[in-house]
């Protein structure tokens, strides 16, 4: 499942969904809103392009590392401290490929996919600087 969504998700359910006969390792990355003195965060995306890019990144990871299953869910909208922002789940035959693919996917998201975060503090709001 590859999607950009306003809705929260259950990471456990999505990780369970990666089980299949040729998968010996499931590696996941869950990004959550950290309390850096912020009250909340807005996540904005160019949704049509972001979803297209996530699809392409998933296919790249499959081709580069031979992983057999990739889920990427990225949230947009108003988020609070502790909320999930992004989930990546990779199913692989062996752990090494799974770890490498998962890291590759989050790095590519951060450098390429049109998503931005605006943080709200008591003092005001600020865009998180891009340029990974």
């Amino acid at each position, binding site marked *: 499942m590859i999607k950009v969504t306003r809705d929260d998700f259950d990471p456990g359910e999505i990780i369970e969904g990666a089980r299949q006969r040729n998968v010996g390792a499931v590696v996941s990355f869950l*990004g959550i809103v950290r309390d850096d003195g912020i009250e909340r965060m807005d*996540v*904005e*995306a*160019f949704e*049509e*392009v*972001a979803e*297209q890019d996530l699809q392409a990144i998933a296919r790249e990871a499959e081709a580069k590392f031979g992983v057999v299953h990739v889920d990427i869910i*990225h949230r947009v909208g108003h988020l609070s401290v502790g909320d999930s*922002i*992004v989930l990546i789940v990779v199913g692989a035959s062996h752990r090494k490929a799974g770890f490498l693919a998962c890291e590759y996917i*989050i790095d590519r*998201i*951060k*450098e*390429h*996919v*049109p*998503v*931005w*975060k*605006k943080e709200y503090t008591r003092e005001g709001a600020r*865009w*998180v*600087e*891009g*340029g*990974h």
Partner: protein
Amino acid sequence: MVDTVHVRAFARFRELFGDALEVRVKVPATVRSVVQEIARMNPDGAHEILDGEGNLRKSVIVLVNRERIPGNGREDYPVHPGDEIALYPPVAGG
């Protein structure tokens, strides 16, 4: 002859220019003529997309019809009536 292209802006640029705007440019139009017209319409935000010499800043990402236009010479990329131009600052998701 003048025609209209659709421009979408995101994040900081959306706050400066609006999320969707119609820009009227002389044909034949290019990425350069579109961004210069946006800068003319929004003098307060112009420096965010153009440098001191009026050139498109390298950090600005430009898509035409949802295709990224990379590299040197991207300002000369042709834009046709009805095209969708997207402008955004460096991404910060994940």
